[in-house]
């Protein structure tokens, strides 16, 4: 975890969304007589129509007996950057073998306890609404995933990522980096103190805004359970407009990414609490008693 943020060192490899050039700069006055019409900029209406059509086709399919989907579609054209980045062949079934039935081990050598508090990484208090995000990591059989690594990253309260390529005109916060880690407890629990992220504008289409979200990276007991996802906040008005959230076409599945406000987690005169449990796929391994009790992955063993 960097003590001081040096923007120049941040991953210059990652680019902002592809279609940057296609979006009109609203601050540039239009020329008096355009020599040739500019290519039409895609609007939210265009994207919403595509999202709606996909959603309706899915609802119809389910009505006709298709199974409910639980994961995002890899092929989801409204997220334009996915068009050339999804496999066209269906995923090939494999029975997980040996190494895939185990997971890398992380422990307290890897992660300091203070890394779960994103509000104390600098000299001062970050701006914004302080929140607590807590929950449990479970496997598909409801077993707690104990002693495993959870990583998060997010925008600051004004929706700005501390990343060289995020150049949108919202302020950086010198007291907020937006990166946290923790190791889950014996009951699979995790807990972060952070700042509620702002909505984030991107360039998928004109006037595209991401709902406020926190990126989560999770490991299970099997490498096959590895997942990276995003947690959202309840009641966000941007949900229906967002091609990334909507890439999960099933409402029940989408709801699984939305935290609930939890007054029991809220601390008086300090921070609002949000609860979010994460369920990984089922472990395919035959379990020993110690593992089932959550002993795995802890340095202190």
């Amino acid at each position, binding site marked *: 975890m960097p003590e001081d943020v040096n923007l120049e060192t*941040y*991953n210059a*490899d*990652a*680019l*902002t969304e592809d279609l940057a050039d296609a979006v009109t700069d609203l601050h540039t006055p239009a020329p008096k007589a355009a020599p040739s019409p500019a290519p039409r900029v895609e609007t939210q209406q265009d994207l919403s129509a595509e999202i709606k059509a996909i959603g309706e086709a899915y609802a119809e399919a389910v009505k006709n007996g298709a*199974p409910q*989907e*639980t*994961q*995002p*579609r890899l092929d989801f054209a409204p*997220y334009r950057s*996915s*068009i*050339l*980045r*999804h*496999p*066209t062949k269906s*995923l*090939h*079934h*494999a029975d*997980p*073998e*040996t*190494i895939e039935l185990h997971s*890398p*081990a*992380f422990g307290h*050598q*890897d*992660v300091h306890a203070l890394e779960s508090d994103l509000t104390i990484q600098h000299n001062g208090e970050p701006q914004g609404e302080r929140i607590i995000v807590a929950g449990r990591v479970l496997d*598909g*059989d*409801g*077993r707690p995933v104990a002693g495993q*690594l959870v*990583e998060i*990253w997010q925008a600051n309260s004004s929706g700005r990522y501390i990343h060289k390529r995020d150049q949108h005109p919202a302020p950086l916060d010198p007291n907020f980096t*937006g*990166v946290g*880690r923790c190791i889950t407890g014996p009951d699979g629990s995790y807990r972060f103190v952070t700042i509620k992220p702002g909505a984030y504008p991107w360039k998928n289409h004109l006037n595209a805004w991401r709902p406020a979200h926190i*990126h989560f*990276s999770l490991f299970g007991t099997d*490498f*096959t359970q*590895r*997942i*990276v996802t*995003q947690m959202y906040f309840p009641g966000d008005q941007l949900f229906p407009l967002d091609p*990334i959230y909507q*890439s999960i076409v099933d409402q029940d*599945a*989408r709801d699984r*990414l939305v935290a609930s406000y939890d007054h029991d987690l809220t601390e008086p005169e300090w921070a609002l609490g949000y609860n979010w449990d994460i369920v990984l*796929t089922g472990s*395919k391994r035959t379990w020993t008693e110690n593992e089932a009790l959550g002993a*795995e992955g802890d340095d202190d063993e």
Partner: protein
Amino acid sequence: MSKLIATPGQTVGPFYGYALPYEKDRELLAPGALDSIRLQGTVYDGAGHPIPDAILEIWQPDSEGNIVSRTGSLVRDGYTFTGWGRCAVGNSGVYTFTTVNPGPTKPGAAAFISVAVFARGLMNRLFTRIYLPENEEALAKDPLLSSLDPERRKTLIARRDADGGLTFDIRLQGEGETVFLDFEGTGTGDAAQ
């Protein structure tokens, strides 16, 4: 215990660069250490262009085929082999790990490295395997490889470089599309309902 439905994945997005990479993330062994090899490759999109914003993880047994369960991947001490590493590709889509040739985890089994692929524009992570090219007999008996036609099978077998390293390109789409794996048996990789 009741079966729970898995939480959906989402794209890693464009801004993982200040969060997921860390010092020596791609060095399962110190470069130049005895038995260390370079594992490298390029990640391509469906137009054949390198992807500059993908991040890969590898997870593998040691050279004897032992699966290690040691902490210390995030804060490497330079000596402990943890079997796991992470590498964000560079501007030209190239990744480089320093690791060892994995050993077979069972006598006669084909040795491979497990891989998870994340990228901006990729909605959910993908899994694949990097097989070592040498043991033809073991490769011929491998259950996954034998379930693939020769063209697709090729995409999972690394090339041995002159310096003893391995090259393994990943093609998310199109000609030579890498075989990506579904461990859930549903054809889509989704957990069963």
